[in-house]
């Protein structure tokens, strides 16, 4: 507990965290802490009003992030973070809203909600910690597990083709799509800042090392080896065609893939509202 006290005293981001809940549940070498760090730095640099910030998460290791942030936060049922966040956003357009969850939560059980929120262009920033497997339940096959990788439920190697999340997000209509790894701390922070300032459905994928659960089964003997691997295989290519950016063990293209403008659901609704109110006034006056 001495470490927690020292952290509270000296760490500039401690004020954003529910430090009374530390130590956190994440394993050594996990990328989730890095995502939490980048997110709080983005909040800090943008001077976001934390009283008006809501973070929603689903189930899984990264799902616990909502409970570590000292803001209004909702740790929802498995897969439903985006649907619940849609309700929050539409009911209060003045809040800053982020969904931070995992690949299984957002793209397996919650996949339908992801594509529909992107299609509607609901204003929210979605950050996905992609660790290639279901870490919290002990390392099962997920929708992003690379082909031929080993998990507890693909003991002979994965035969399912993984989702290319940035391609999926772009095709579903997200106005901002980026991918980084847990190694790209500065760039990830800049991306989160950009997304938080932009209106519409924004998606950031973070390839996050899971050395304890995924790494061990896939020839990464130490956490540092996963980080080295991310360094070796990642390649920054802004504006790259997201449909060609599949993740393989040999190559991970990172960067900003989409950055476009499109009216949000809320903006279109507001326009309809003004029209309806005008008509009602005319009717009442007549």
């Amino acid at each position: 507990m001495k470490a927690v006290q020292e952290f509270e005293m000296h760490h500039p981001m401690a004020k954003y965290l529910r430090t009374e809940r530390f130590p956190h549940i994440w394993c050594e070498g996990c990328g989730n802490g890095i995502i939490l760090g980048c997110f709080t730095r983005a909040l800090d640099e943008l001077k976001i009003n934390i009283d008006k910030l809501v973070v929603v998460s689903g189930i899984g290791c990264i799902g616990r992030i909502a409970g570590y942030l000292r803001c209004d936060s909702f740790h929802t049922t498995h897969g439903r973070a985006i649907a619940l966040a849609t309700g929050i956003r539409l009911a209060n357009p003045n809040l800053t809203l982020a969904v931070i969850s995992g690949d299984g939560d957002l793209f397996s059980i919650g996949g339908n909600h992801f594509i529909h929120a992107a299609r509607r262009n609901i204003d929210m920033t979605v950050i996905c910690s992609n660790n290639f497997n279901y870490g919290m339940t002990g390392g099962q096959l997920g929708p992003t597990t690379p082909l031929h990788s080993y998990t507890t439920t693909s003991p002979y190697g994965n035969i399912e083709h993984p989702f290319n999340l940035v391609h999926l997000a772009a095709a579903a209509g997200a106005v901002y799509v980026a991918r980084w790894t847990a190694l790209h701390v500065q760039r990830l922070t800049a991306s989160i800042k950009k997304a938080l300032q932009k209106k519409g459905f924004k998606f950031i994928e973070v390839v996050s090392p899971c050395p304890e659960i995924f790494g061990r089964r896939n020839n990464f003997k130490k956490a540092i080896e996963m980080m080295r691997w991310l360094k070796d295989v990642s390649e920054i290519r802004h504006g790259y065609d997201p449909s060609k950016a599949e993740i393989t063990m040999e190559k991970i293209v990172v960067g900003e893939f989409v950055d476009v403008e499109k009216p949000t659901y809320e903006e279109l609704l507001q326009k309809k509202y003004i029209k309806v109110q005008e008509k009602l006034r005319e009717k009442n006056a007549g």
Partner: protein
Amino acid sequence: MTEQRTVLTGKHLMQGDMACAEGAIAAGCRFFAGYPITPATEIAERMARRMIEVGGIYVQMEDELASMAAIIGASWAGVKAMTATSGPGFSLMQENIGLAAMTETPCVVVNIMRGSPSTGQPTEPGQQDVMQAQWGSHGDYDVIALAPASVQEMFDLTIECFNLSETYRVPTFLLADGFIGHLWERVIIPPLEEIKVVKRKKPKVPPEKYIPFKPDDDLVPPMANFGDGYRVHVTGLTHDEHGYPRTDDPEVQFKLVQRLCEKIRKNAEKIIKIKELMLEDAEVAVIAYGIASRASISAVKKAREAGIKAGLLRLVTVWPFPEKIVSEIANQVKAIVVPEMNYGQLVREVERAAKETPVHFIPKLGGEPHKPDEIFEVIRRAVK
């Protein structure tokens, strides 16, 4: 935002589903998320037209899982929220109904029941989701469910659902059957100032002293909305009074689950509403709710004409089940008759409360309601 045409004061000819939507608006509902399903679609259609008029939000979600999640989110953002569905959608909603119960989120779910199980009879009415309403999601929690028997009650009880939901921070159901949902009848909408509307209680202390899930004496904790500056953490995990996960502490789990149940059970007498007809001297009692209670009125009157002392107990509140009231009636009468549009659901609760008094059940499946004569015949045989 300007708000116009919030309450349509006056006399109207309305369909049950429409009256439900108008009741919600009168109760202050300003968020509706739903997915089309027969025979509840007319509620969504009415809300799609009306929400924008009153400065509220209508959103059609991708499915009922999302609809239920969205109303929980909207409620935490401080807006009264509702969804409407029928059996198949109600099944999908159970996941997040459990979340609403666990996180003590005020919200209203309308179920216009149709013939089931599974896809069943989309356009035919039924009363087959009555037990699911209480026991549908996994785990222990208590809910409130009201069963309207007229289009007027579709309006009145929707308001009551919101008031109860806000008071007890619990998902509250309007459990109507397809008959009442699709029925056209006269509705009287009172002036705005005559409609009693309850709002959730807010914290009376500043954020640094606020303990989000610490209950008052009524077992209900005051609720801070997102954005109010209280910085609340909400989770479906077993949590302590601070809202923090405490999944390995048996005492925390016991205390939480106990309170989720007891806040309804201890307040049951305040919540429960019933309607009585000629029960004072009754020797046989019909116990019914929703559409089945309407034929029961005629049956009871016919029995009286035939010299049988019959009476009717109509359950306006189905959950919490009015156990005490049913027990008292069971002590008074020689027999109880229960007509339901299912193969035997709430009758099990009646039997439990009635103890030794014989209970005669009249099932009805297929879409046609009970005929008064069918119920009368059972009354007649029951007192022979």
